[in-house]
């Protein structure tokens, strides 16, 4: 636990600078010259790197953290989320990796993307990614981390599909994004569970809450809440960090430019899941069951991806499966409670895998863009610098003693065998099982990496003459970062060496720094550690030797014989065990069918036909009548106008019979008032009263009243006619009169 917390305004500058760089490049990049783009892009990440180094090595107090509360993001009642950053030994280490390797790759990309017309857009995305990644690791609460988590996902999507004009690239971007969304769904549910039972989303407060009763005793769906929270958060991690079952997007992500593969899909973004588990380690430690799942999934992924790596013939595909496999190692590390070891492997892997990817870029640059290792070979002499760097990184990832990968991988394997955390839960077999799988995976790693190395650098070049002719070493701007990464890959593991060599744990520089955050390093007896150092070394050398027998100098007899003996199996591995096809059948097809069904029923029929088409058809039907009049024929309009005017004239000039006349009946006498007191007309009118409607009016004259006496009782029709003598118009109406 950290004790000292120093508040500093400067912390926000670390993510801010790449964001500023991205904003400048997005707004003005098109108008800027390449030199200016280089200065802005590399300058932004370089400044962030300087700030991060200063914060980590100078400002960060031992056993402490730096905090920067920028603003309150949202607040409702007790729920409050601040946009706040926090740099402790763990997030600080990640910041160093991101900014330092990010800077190297920014420099390298200046050479690699030399011929790219959309130069500024690339660097804008790259800067944006670095900013989002820094937000991810520096965020001091789950929501802020999630913002970074989504931000890096977006940048990953944008950069995988950077050459979006080719459909497969755009599809690979979509696949990465959608697969990650599935993981994010788990992350969100995990976040909700954490909030429900701890009442907070800040990491420090969650850590404190893990000691409380709510987490220890609450259960949900028959299992402790901690188990579910950890499991759902881990689902998020499997998406982001390409673990079984959501690893399928990462190999396809190689469609992006190679510097992107090195930075995002090897060194930084894909390790976010490992970082998250390490960040939440107190929560994970509450649930050995969830830890076991993390460890087993990690180990299974490590082995599975390594096997697929045996048969891939694309340079970057091999490295992609290698990344998936190495991420499995990291998860196996954190899953066995060896958080130090997992983060240590994250750190060493960042160097040697970024180096390997950048070598891949350099080689593909030399091979006119082709990444097919079956046509490579003999590149040792033609690309000496790349060869040297690749050799160092290759030996590092194989786990040859003395190089960084050896220390970190050994730490994970030894930790898995020696871990005490599963004992109490009665699942002590998990540790040795994970360790054994990891040892096999390590042998596989040595084999497929050596296969790659021998096929690319030894023997004769198998490409055609045209490509052969063009092979050249990359420019200094690309080789420089490679050399730096090689130094890191070679020496990066030495930070733990003093402790390991002299048996003084406090001399272990990395653990010394991380212990306050991650708790004390896993105590593994020295005897176990030494045994596994020997076993790991033997396994690494054995894997390399086996690969040499198969592939040194090209496809040798044993390799050909093996492929001929089990062609079906080799093809199955080359097809990645057809997991993509399986997913397509199991998930994508049904979802597509449901989607199509909904599309046809709801969209096409309900909305298009009924809800939209119905009113439209009704309106159309009703519109037929006015359309008959409104036919665009001006003379027709005038004709209707004339008819209307004539009708108006006819009715307007008729004398008014305003409403019901007043009819008074008394006995046989009837009094009628046709105007019943209304206004007198201006024109003289004539009235006719035909009391028995026989055509012969009984009373005529200019007076509107009349009197008549019926001869006998009965029911009579009274017709009143008004006439305007000036116009010759008239109007008449009849009324019934009952006389008793």
């Amino acid at each position, binding site marked *: 636990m950290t004790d000292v917390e120093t508040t500093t305004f400067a912390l926000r500058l670390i993510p801010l600078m790449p964001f500023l760089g991205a904003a400048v490049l997005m707004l003005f990049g098109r108008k800027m010259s390449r030199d200016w783009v280089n200065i802005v892009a590399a300058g932004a990440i370089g400044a962030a790197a300087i700030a991060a180094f200063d914060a980590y090595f100078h400002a960060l107090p031992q056993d402490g953290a730096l905090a920067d509360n920028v603003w309150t993001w949202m607040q409702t009642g007790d729920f409050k989320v601040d946009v706040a950053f926090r740099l402790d030994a763990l997030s600080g280490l990640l910041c160093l990796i991101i900014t330092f390797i990010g800077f190297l790759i920014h420099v390298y990309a200046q050479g690699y993307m030399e011929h790219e017309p959309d130069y500024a857009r690339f660097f804008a995305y790259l800067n944006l990614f670095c900013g989002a990644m820094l937000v991810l690791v520096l965020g001091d609460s789950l929501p802020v981390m999630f913002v970074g988590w989504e931000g890096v996902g977006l940048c990953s999507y944008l950069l995988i599909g950077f050459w979006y004009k080719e459909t497969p690239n755009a599809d690979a971007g979509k696949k990465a994004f959608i697969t990650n969304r599935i993981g994010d769904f788990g992350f969100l549910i995990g976040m909700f569970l954490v909030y429900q039972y701890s009442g907070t989303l800040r990491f420090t407060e969650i850590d404190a809450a893990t000691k409380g009763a709510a987490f220890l005793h609450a259960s949900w769906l028959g299992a402790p809440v901690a188990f579910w929270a950890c499991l759902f958060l881990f689902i998020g991690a499997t998406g982001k960090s390409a673990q079984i079952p959501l690893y399928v997007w990462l190999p396809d992500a190689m469609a992006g430019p190679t510097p992107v593969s090195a930075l995002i899909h090897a060194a930084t973004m894909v390790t976010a899941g490992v970082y998250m588990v390490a960040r939440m380690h107190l929560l994970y430690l509450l649930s050995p069951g969830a830890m076991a799942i993390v460890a087993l999934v990690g180990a299974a992924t490590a082995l599975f991806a390594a096997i697929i790596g045996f048969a891939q013939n694309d340079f970057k595909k091999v490295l992609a499966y290698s990344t998936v496999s190495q991420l499995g190692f990291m998860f196996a590390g954190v899953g066995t409670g060896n958080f130090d070891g997992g983060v240590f492997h994250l750190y060493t892997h960042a160097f040697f895998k970024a180096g390997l990817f950048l070598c891949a870029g350099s080689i593909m640059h030399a091979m006119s863009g082709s990444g097919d290792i079956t046509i490579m070979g003999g590149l040792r002499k033609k690309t000496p610098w790349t060869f040297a760097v690749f050799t160092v990184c290759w030996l590092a990832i194989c786990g040859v003693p003395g190089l960084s990968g050896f220390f970190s991988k050994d730490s994970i394997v030894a930790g898995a065998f020696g871990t005490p955390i599963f004992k109490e839960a009665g699942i002590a077999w998990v540790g040795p099982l994970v360790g054994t799988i990891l040892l096999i995976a390590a042998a596989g790693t040595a084999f497929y990496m050596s296969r790659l190395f021998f096929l690319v650098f030894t023997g004769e070049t198998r490409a055609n003459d045209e490509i052969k002719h063009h092979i050249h070493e990359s420019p200094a701007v690309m080789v420089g970062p490679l050399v730096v990464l090689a130094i890191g890959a070679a020496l990066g593991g030495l930070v733990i060496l003093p402790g390991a060599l002299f048996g003084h744990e406090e001399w272990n520089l990395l653990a010394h720094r991380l212990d306050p955050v991650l708790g004390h390093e896993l105590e593994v007896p020295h005897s176990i550690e030494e045994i596994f150092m020997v076993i790991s070394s033997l396994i690494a050398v054995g894997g390399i030797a086996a690969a040499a027998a198969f592939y040194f100098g090209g496809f040798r007899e044993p390799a050909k014989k093996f492929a001929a003996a089990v062609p079906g199996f080799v093809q199955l591995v080359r097809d990645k065990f057809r997991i993509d096809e399986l997913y397509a059948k199991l998930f994508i097809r049904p979802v597509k069918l449901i989607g199509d069904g909904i599309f046809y029923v709801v969209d096409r029929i309900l909305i298009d036909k009924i809800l939209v088409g119905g009113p439209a058809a009704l309106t159309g039907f009703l519109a037929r009548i006015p359309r008959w009049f*409104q036919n665009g024929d001006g003379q027709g309009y005038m004709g209707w106008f004339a008819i209307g005017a004539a009708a108006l004239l006819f009715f307007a000039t008729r004398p008014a019979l305003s409403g019901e006349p007043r009819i008074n009946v008394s006995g046989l006498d009837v009094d009628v008032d046709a105007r019943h007191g209304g206004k007198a007309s201006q024109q003289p009118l004539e009235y006719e009263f035909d009391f028995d409607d026989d055509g012969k009016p009984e009373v005529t004259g200019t007076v509107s009243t009349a009197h008549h006496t019926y001869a006998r009782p009965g029911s009579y029709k009274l017709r009143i006619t008004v006439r305007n003598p000036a116009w010759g118009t008239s109007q008449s109406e009849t009324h019934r009169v009952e006389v008793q």
Partner: protein
Amino acid sequence: MPTNYYLVLSFILFLIGTGGVLLRRNTLIVLMGIELQLNGGNLAMLAFARALGDEKGHVFAFLIIALAAAEAAVGLAILVGLFRGRQTVNLDEATLMKR
């Protein structure tokens, strides 16, 4: 002479004009029909003005003459535009709104 004679003449003029407007296809003739309608109206105005001894009718007649001149100017301008646009002055060939 009785006012009615003038009114009948004015009505006949107006009817002839209306017939021209409604039945002829040539815009020029239609414009001439409109002139006849206006003149029929003018004659009725003057007849009533004299019969009722009210000068407002004369004023109206002048107003209508001015209006008729303006209408002829605008109408003929449109006619020229129409002819330029589609090489015809027939109204039944200028029915874009129909489609």
